[in-house]
């Protein structure tokens, strides 16, 4: 499928871009010299993907491992309980430096060159609901209530989205919009496979095409009785949604989300059951299709669930689920890098609500721990590792925001530091985050 390429051209010359360009031209024309024709092409529209690992991942098995050949005063690696494939961390070169990755991240090694790995991020909570709210917006929540806008909404609103049917999609996660126009509010799907249901035509109903057309005509004439003194008129919001729905149903996207019919996609993403709505492979393939078809440029999704392993299942389910999530992520990154090899115009953020304790509890599992990690692929950030945890305890540690290395005079990373940095790299205001972005980490 090659829609994306066409779509990017469309986005580049969309109505809003054209008008903005016209304004800029009028201003710049008097200053235009010989170099005018040499102006760089406008920057393509930005893509944003947010992927959530539900239940609190184990960073020791993933982004923040330790060497099993050593012993640590405050960390129990539980190596003996793990299958041999999940015991040994992987040495990876990041920004010219060898870094250890947990064994579950093996499939991501080919994408190390576009990764900024934030370690030792203080999630400030060990309550799932509060952590979920935090990573949704990258702003500190009020208890379990999210504050502000979802990161996806913020990123979707930044660009020209007039040409998109679904400017902002959220799969398996709530989405919030307090500050931006209603037409960029996230379209929420509870499951990835609901895209197929969303695309089921209304003509399957017992109404002829002629009657459906008459119904649409009547719906278009309706005004509703709410005066605009009472805020945005529902009829106007409904019109936007309805126009998009009609376009969605008429533009023949159904086959794109019939994953079972695409054997190449099935193989690429390692999909064993295309109807397994919560399988990371199905989620990632759906995210890709949303972007590839040009339906959306901003997708936030729950990539994997079931990480909350407090009991002996930690030893088997935790690594297996992390492997499945990272394998699906690797397939998605491979697809995204087809037309954006360095992810200059793409940001992929991967997070969990917090991490798991460094000590194994009496039941053979791990409990909740503050010090988590956030993975950012692309997004205009400087590549490498920013942040750290205490070597012996996986505890939080202050870092120098320029070098990203431990520094007692520095600061402990918070999610809003990362949110502000991603926003700044995308050219967006950082005021809502109430922290300075990590400027040194913007490429």
């Amino acid at each position, binding site marked *: 499928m090659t829609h994306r390429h066409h779509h990017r051209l469309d986005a580049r010359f969309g109505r809003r871009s054209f008008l903005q360009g016209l304004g800029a031209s009028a201003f710049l024309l008097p200053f235009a010299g010989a170099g005018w024709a040499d102006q760089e092409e406008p920057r393509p529209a930005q893509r944003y993907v947010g992927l959530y690992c*539900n239940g609190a991942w184990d960073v020791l098995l993933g982004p923040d491992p330790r060497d099993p050949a050593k012993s640590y005063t405050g960390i129990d690696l539980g190596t003996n309980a793990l299958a041999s494939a999940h015991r040994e961390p992987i040495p990876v070169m990041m920004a010219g430096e060898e870094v250890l990755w947990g064994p579950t991240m093996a499939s991501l090694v080919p994408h190390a060159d576009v990764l900024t790995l934030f370690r030792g991020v203080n999630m400030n909570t060990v309550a799932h*609901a509060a952590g*979920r709210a935090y990573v949704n917006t990258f702003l500190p929540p009020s208890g*379990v*209530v999210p504050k502000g806008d979802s990161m996806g909404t913020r990123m979707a609103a930044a660009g020209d989205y007039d040409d998109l*049917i*679904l400017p902002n999609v959220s799969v398996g*996660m*709530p*989405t919030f*919009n307090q500050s931006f126009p*209603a037409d960029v*509010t*996230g*379209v*929420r*799907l*509870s*499951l990835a496979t*609901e895209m197929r*249901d*969303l695309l*089921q035509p*209304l003509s399957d*109903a*017992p*109404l*002829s095409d*002629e*009657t*459906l057309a*008459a*119904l649409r*005509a*009547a*719906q278009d*004439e*309706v*005004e*509703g*009785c*709410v*005066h605009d*003194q*009472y*805020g*945005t*008129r*529902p*009829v106007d*919001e*409904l019109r*936007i*949604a*309805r126009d*998009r*729905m009609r376009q*969605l*149903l008429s533009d023949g996207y159904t086959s794109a989300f019939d994953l079972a019919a695409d054997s190449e996609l099935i193989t690429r993403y390692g999909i064993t059951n295309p109807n397994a709505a919560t399988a990371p492979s199905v989620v990632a393939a759906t995210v890709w299709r949303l972007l590839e078809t040009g339906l959306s440029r901003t997708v936030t999704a729950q990539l994997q669930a079931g990480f909350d392993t407090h009991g002996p299942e930690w030893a088997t389910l935790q690594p297996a689920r992390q492997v499945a999530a990272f394998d699906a992520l690797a397939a998605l990154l491979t697809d995204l890098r087809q037309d954006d090899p360095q992810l200059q115009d793409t940001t992929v953020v991967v997070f969990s609500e917090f991490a798991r304790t460094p000590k194994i509890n009496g039941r053979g599992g791990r409990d909740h721990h503050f010090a988590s990690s956030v993975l950012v692929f692309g997004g205009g950030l400087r590549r490498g590792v920013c942040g750290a945890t205490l070597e012996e305890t996986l505890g939080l540690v202050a870092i120098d925001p320029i070098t990203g290395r431990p520094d007692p005079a520095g600061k402990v990373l918070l999610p809003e530091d990362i949110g502000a940095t991603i926003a700044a790299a995308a050219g967006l205001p950082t005021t809502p985050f109430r922290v300075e972005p990590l400027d040194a980490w913007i490429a």
Partner: protein
Amino acid sequence: MLTTRMVLVTAALVLAGCYEGVSGPGDLDELPGRVPGADGEGEDPSDDDDGPDSGEPGHHDQGEIEDPAGRRVRRMTAQQFHRSLIAVTGQPWPAFDDYAAAMGKADFAEITDEGREISVTFDKFVHDAALHSCTAAIDADLEGTSAGTVMRWTKPTDRDEVVIRRNLDYLMLRFLGQETKPTDPRVDPWMNLLTHEPSDGEIDDGLMIERWTAVCVGLVTHPDFVTY
């Protein structure tokens, strides 16, 4: 001050017009409650009168002020929509539980807020629900197993516009709580849908059933139905 009062009174009149004559069937009582005062009921515009202009900065006639916005009209929650659908059509949507989360229903485990965004997802599944329930309601009307929920004052054989209009007025009241007068423009789109000449020039009974189904769907997907 006078301008502010006029805006408030006008807004109250507009809303009062919207809900004028609400006297629908008893089951409409189960529809989501309106916020007291949202339609001006029980409010005295003079309550806003804070006396003569003191001449102090910030008083009403000291330059332009922004009129206060009214209470924001909200979309029904998923559960409210489904209950309302059942109230007006007498028919549940069997797939509701499958799509309730996509329509914004909180599960209070992972998601603790009720989604109220008017989105493509919501509109699509509202259409799916309306198509199912309206079809089932008209089937029940025609089979005589209901007391005439949608086609209460008309039959598929009726072509008389007076008869059609009588049933349409009833549906406007039942679905939207709007009592319509003979010249009410809000009825026009639906009357046109029911009476326009089809491409093959003939309206048969099957087509009339389709058209009444379409009107029912149109009223369930109406902005005044899905919001309050």
